[in-house]
């Protein structure tokens, strides 16, 4: 079926690299037109309440201001909630900018200033004064924990927890070894380096070209067409370069709505770029409180797994993600009870952030596994190996592949795990306590429906097109590799046309689906082009390929030839010329195999090993080494693949040690809404990271054997860091992030 690679599977440098490193890759706000207007949003300074009045007089008088929009004069838009629901919206009523005087979260847009320059809009925005009737906000998850509920309406695409199996409570109470603990994680914000922005190029009342920061150009197009009643034929959304998103760009953001609204109202082109503070009123990884109870027999075999999670959501939407299910499929255990509830806070609706649900749930599970290993007196790696299972007990389904044993083996060897001394506080390096911890990671390997087109032209140029997005994941590059290999042309001869809503339909770039889905569609389209070329070749007089079947021919050196004998064949240019054609193009379509999905389910796996060093006097903590061994099927490009895993590790270190959206619960406002105080790992925080891709053959996960890599890199990292900290200090930290104040409050120097 798939020709073993010449270029697919090689560490090819990014095809968009030269543009990115020279500043020539245009992001959403980097499109120009004479006379373009600029918009700046005024944000609420309360978290809950109602606008009593807005005074825009001073702002309107400011030189250069064109118009100020508030809930009092906003042009009308769609009425029904369904029109506002984007492709991944959770159940509820999506936020509608400037529609009502009600304030539902800190940083909610309350006015929108449009002016001739960015500076005029920004300065005028500071002159808008708003009077509020303020309600007492509830933003602390612990305070609303008792009011948690099971969401009635489930979010599409998110599996609710499975029904309990066996007798988990009885098995727990009767077991030889047991642990039960509560894990708390504060909310996080994605903070991609590029802030959300939209540039609307107005052509006429019906026709717009929109450059939007989004993980799905078609999702943004459908959103604005639904809301403003525009014809999708007349609206093109482009997202050629996306400066990071990590899930925050899956749902359209208010700047898209406001830019399009103002453009249609003023009949002008409009650009809106958010401020960094504004980025904290958006989608966030919900704060969570989880209880995990594990029990094992004398030998370390798991007897009971119970995992209960409560996550924050907003007042207006029930955001849901898969948090607890992982605990039911990670290890062999016949008694399991998994429950997941939500509790409402006065904040914006949370959303998907890198490995949504798994990053949170596996953090608790893998911390608890470490606690259980200590309780038994067993090596943490040995406990996991002992409870390995090649089956999904949640769904009673077989796995398409699971090379986790190889991850454990190759990861632990590279790390030197066998040199670990078991007792906490038993390893030192000068003044530093040294800790070694590990964890397993899990993520689903899914496919979404995707379409693509592939064109081969008589000059040997290949064009691959699909609406897919490259958010830094390497989509441009892997699609170019697939196109180059299918037609045996240099990668430079392949033009990858993506990031445009008018191209063949794909889903949003999320869930680690794109390589498997769009990659497969491209592969299928390329096969279709080859089949068409063979048909044409067989129409030719005295065709040497007259009796050849499609699976017997390949393209080599610009010729369609028999695989077994390259001498027998016809030049592609001659084939096209025989039909007076300059090119041939075919569509391809890929999607999940529903028949197979009844029996099989597919996951990616990882084993993460972490070394920390903690200054015993000062409490300063460094992650000095990480080894992450990944089982994720076929790797199309080890260079870009490795970078995705590195990025996951770095964000996992942030989750463990740095990242926390700090809320003043008296006012419900986020205090650290900037990059100086919302800490993400910096150069100095990141030392030695090693990524290993283990051999994993999978012919079921996707037609091209790919499982996806965007999420698996982060899963388990924070738990491995926390477990290493326990090994270094002898203290369990169960409240994330583990910042230095928490370390200093513990009895570090006991």
């Amino acid at each position, binding site marked *: 079926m798939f020709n073993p690679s010449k270029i697919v599977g090689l560490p090819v440098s990014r095809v968009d690299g*030269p543009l990115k490193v020279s500043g020539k890759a245009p992001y959403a706000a980097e499109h120009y037109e004479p006379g373009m207007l600029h918009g700046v949003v005024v944000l609420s300074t309360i978290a809950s309440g109602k606008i009593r009045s807005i005074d825009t007089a001073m702002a309107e008088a400011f030189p250069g201001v064109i118009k100020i929009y508030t809930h009092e004069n906003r042009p009308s838009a769609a009425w029904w909630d369904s029109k506002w629901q984007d492709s991944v919206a959770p159940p509820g009523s999506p936020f509608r900018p400037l529609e009502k005087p009600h304030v539902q979260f800190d940083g909610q847009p309350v006015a929108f200033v449009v002016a001739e320059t960015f500076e005029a809009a920004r300065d005028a925005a500071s002159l808008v004064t708003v009077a509020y009737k303020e309600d007492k906000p509830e933003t602390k998850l612990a305070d609303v924990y008792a009011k948690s509920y099971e969401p009635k309406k489930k979010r599409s695409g998110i599996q609710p927890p499975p029904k309990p199996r066996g007798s988990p409570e009885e098995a727990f109470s009767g077991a030889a070894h047991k642990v039960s603990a509560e894990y708390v994680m504060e909310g996080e914000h994605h903070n991609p380096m590029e802030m959300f922005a939209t540039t609307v190029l107005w052509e006429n009342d019906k026709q717009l070209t929109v450059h939007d920061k989004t993980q799905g150009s078609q999702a943004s197009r459908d959103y604005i067409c639904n809301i403003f009643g525009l014809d999708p034929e007349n609206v093109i959304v482009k997202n050629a370069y996306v400066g990071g998103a990590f899930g925050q760009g899956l749902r359209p953001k208010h700047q898209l709505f406001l830019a399009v609204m103002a453009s249609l109202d003023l009949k002008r082109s409009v650009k809106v770029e958010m401020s960094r503070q504004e980025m904290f009123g958006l989608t966030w990884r919900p704060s969570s409180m989880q209880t995990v109870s594990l029990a094992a027999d004398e030998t370390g075999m798991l007897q009971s797994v119970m995992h209960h999670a409560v996550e924050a959501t907003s007042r207006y939407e029930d955001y849901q993600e898969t948090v607890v299910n992982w605990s039911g499929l990670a290890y062999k255990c016949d008694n399991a009870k998994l429950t997941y509830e939500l509790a409402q806070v006065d904040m914006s609706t949370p959303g998907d952030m890198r490995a949504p649900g798994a990053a949170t749930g596996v953090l608790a599970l893998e911390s608890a596994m470490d606690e259980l290993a200590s309780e038994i007196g067993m090596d943490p790696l040995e406990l996991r190996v002992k409870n390995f299972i090649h089956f999904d007990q949640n769904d009673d389904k077989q796995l398409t592949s699971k090379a986790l044993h190889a991850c454990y083996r190759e990861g632990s060897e590279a790390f030197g795990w066998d040199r670990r001394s078991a007792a906490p506080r038993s390893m030192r390096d000068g003044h530093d306590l040294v800790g070694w911890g590990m964890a397993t990671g899990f993520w689903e390997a899914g496919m979404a429906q995707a379409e693509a087109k592939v064109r081969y032209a008589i000059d040997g140029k290949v064009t691959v097109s699909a609406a897919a997005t490259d958010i830094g994941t390497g989509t441009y590059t892997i699609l170019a590799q697939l196109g180059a290999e299918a037609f045996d042309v240099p990668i430079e001869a392949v033009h990858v046309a993506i990031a445009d809503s008018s191209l063949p339909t794909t889903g949003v770039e999320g869930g680690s689906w794109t390589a498997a889905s769009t990659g497969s569609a491209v592969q299928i389209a390329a096969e279709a082009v080859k089949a068409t070329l063979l048909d044409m070749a067989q129409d030719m007089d005295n065709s040497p390929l007259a009796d050849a079947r499609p699976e017997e021919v390949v393209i080599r050196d610009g010729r369609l030839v028999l695989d077994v004998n390259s001498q027998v064949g016809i030049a592609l240019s001659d084939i096209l010329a025989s039909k007076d054609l300059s090119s041939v193009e075919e569509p391809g379509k890929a999607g999940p195999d529903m028949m197979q999905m009844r029996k099989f389910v597919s996951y990616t796996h990882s084993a993460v090993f972490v070394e920390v060093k903690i200054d015993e006097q000062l409490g300063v903590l460094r992650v000095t080494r990480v080894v992450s061994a990944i089982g994720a099927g076929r790797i199309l490009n080890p260079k870009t693949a490795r970078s995705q895993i590195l990025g996951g590790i770095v964000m996992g270190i942030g989750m463990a040690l740095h990242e926390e959206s700090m809320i003043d619960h008296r006012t419900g406002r986020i205090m650290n809404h900037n990059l100086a105080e919302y800490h993400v790992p910096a150069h100095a925080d990141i030392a030695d990271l090693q990524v290993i891709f283990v051999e994993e053959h999978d012919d079921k996960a996707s037609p091209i054997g790919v499982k996806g890599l965007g999420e698996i890199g982060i899963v388990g990292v924070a738990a491995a860091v926390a477990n290493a900290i326990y090994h270094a200090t002898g203290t369990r930290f169960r409240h994330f992030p583990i910042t230095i104040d928490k370390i200093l409050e513990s009895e570090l120097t006991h």
Partner: protein
Amino acid sequence: MLHADSERSGIPIVITLNGKQERLEVAPWVTLLDLLRGPMELPGTKKGCDHGQCGACTVLIDGQRMNACLKLAVTLDGAEITTIEGLGQPDKLHPLQQAFVDHDAYQCGYCTPGQICSAAGLLNEGHAQSRAEIRELMSGNLCRCGAYTNIADAIEQVMGQSSGERPDRNAPNKAFPGKGFKEAAE
């Protein structure tokens, strides 16, 4: 003459931007970053925070790395400014730009121009002698995609080329001599 803020512009400055002399009239409240990204249509210099916290807008002013968001354009009369566009072109990359491509020292690419300009400034300064010092002295440039180790590899390679040898990974941190960042033993 280019007007950075049409309504109330006014202060004339002359700068050398990527080797070319520019006579501008800029309003006193316009930052270098907004001047570049706006009227100059040079968006290679990125806005990541507008507060001097992320480093995405790093440019070279008279050879020194600076956050363009913290510089008002009117203060730069007579200055020589190099942005990422002035460092190299897609078909004629600066050695640092080429090293970033070779080492995959980016993912989304948004912090990349700032990282590269910052690295160029770092090389000009000559303070970084080891990998640990590179990491410490590049810490003003955030990368949310987490390409830090690849960025350090890219800078190390270019540093090695210019000085004839690779910096010593385990050399003591001279930037902060009191606290060595000794890498883990292999």
